[in-house]
């Protein structure tokens, strides 16, 4: 991370590299396994290992690993029951998976020389679109055509409808974008900033201690952001789910 001399571009860390490919590289339809895929698989494996190994003993008095696993379970379960209520418990697997996947993706990106897959809009947008489409289908299945009254602000005079309904529709359609852009922009900006400031360490010589201290502080902040963004993603998914289940 602390490349001396600033020879490396701060954006180099986001470059997608093909590790091995089925078919010609760059060809349409070729399946390539990239460093992004590798970190996603790593995140998946780590989450599974974290939970399976943590709960293997299933002791009544939990050990360290089991405490962590139970903590993460209870955190997400509490989140759902606070925002959605008892009806939301069926969707626990989805929200827990999203939360853990994003959290581990963010944290894996904090390791030097690794890759942050959540810093790519295509990844976060796919996740957000999954949530958006799933929630919309759920709402339509659950409420039928009544779902479309969602776009009519309650108590608004009919004369205002032609203006308000497009605004509501845009507002609704902006959900997956704000959900994905928030996560992606935070990770991208944080990692770029870290790299830029780390580039100054070598350039400034003795005074490099200043950017070095800043990088240490920012690393702490980035870890906080890694948690916070996973939390925000999960809680917004819960809020959208709550809307889909209960409408107005």
């Amino acid at each position: 991370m602390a490349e001396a001399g600033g020879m490396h571009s701060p954006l180099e860390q986001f470059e997608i590299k093909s590790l091995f490919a089925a078919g010609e590289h760059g060809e349409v339809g070729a399946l390539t396994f990239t460093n992004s895929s590798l970190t996603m698989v790593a995140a998946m494996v780590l989450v599974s290992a974290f939970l399976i190994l943590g709960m293997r003993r299933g002791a009544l008095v939990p050990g360290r690993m089991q405490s962590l696993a139970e903590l993460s379970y209870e955190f997400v379960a509490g989140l759902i029951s606070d925002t959605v209520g008892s009806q939301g418990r069926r969707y626990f697997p989805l929200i827990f998976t999203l939360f853990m996947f994003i959290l581990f993706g963010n944290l894996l990106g904090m390791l030097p020389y690794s890759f942050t897959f959540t810093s790519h809009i295509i990844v976060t947008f796919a996740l957000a679109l999954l949530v958006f489409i799933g929630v919309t289908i759920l709402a339509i299945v659950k409420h039928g055509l009544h779902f479309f009254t969602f776009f009519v602000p309650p108590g608004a005079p009919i004369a205002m409808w032609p203006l308000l309904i497009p605004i509501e529709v845009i507002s609704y359609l902006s959900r997956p974008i704000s959900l994905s852009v928030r996560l992606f922009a935070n990770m991208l900006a944080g990692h770029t900033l870290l790299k830029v400031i780390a580039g100054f360490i070598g350039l400034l010589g003795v005074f490099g201690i200043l950017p070095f201290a800043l990088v240490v502080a920012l690393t702490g902040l980035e870890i906080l952001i890694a948690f916070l963004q996973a939390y925000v993603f999960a809680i917004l998914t819960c809020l959208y789910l709550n809307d889909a289940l209960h409408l107005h």
Partner: protein
Amino acid sequence: MKDDPPLPSLAKLDEKLRAAEAKRRKTKTRSEIQGQGLGFALRIGVEIVAALIVGVGIGLLLDWWLGTKPWFLLLFFVLGAAAGFMNVFRVVGGLGGQVGYRRAEKPKDEASGEPGKDSRTDG
């Protein structure tokens, strides 16, 4: 006569307890407000941009489809901006039962005296 002396001491104790409790609550809310503020800051900027992206996207699409070059873009740019402001308004106010940004209704009513906890669900 006899129960007069314990009364003031009990009242004093009560007062002290209340003061300590208030102090604790105050410090707690302060740290909660900080976390809440950070979550807020991360959310709000994106809301306007996202709504604008959608508005401009719809405008360009309609223009391209109907061949009415700038008009739908202009219209939907304004609508997108309005939607963005409305989103921010909802996030900040946590009110106005609208698309998505209504404060989560608590199914089981918890102690409602905690201002931090409620709005934490917003960000």
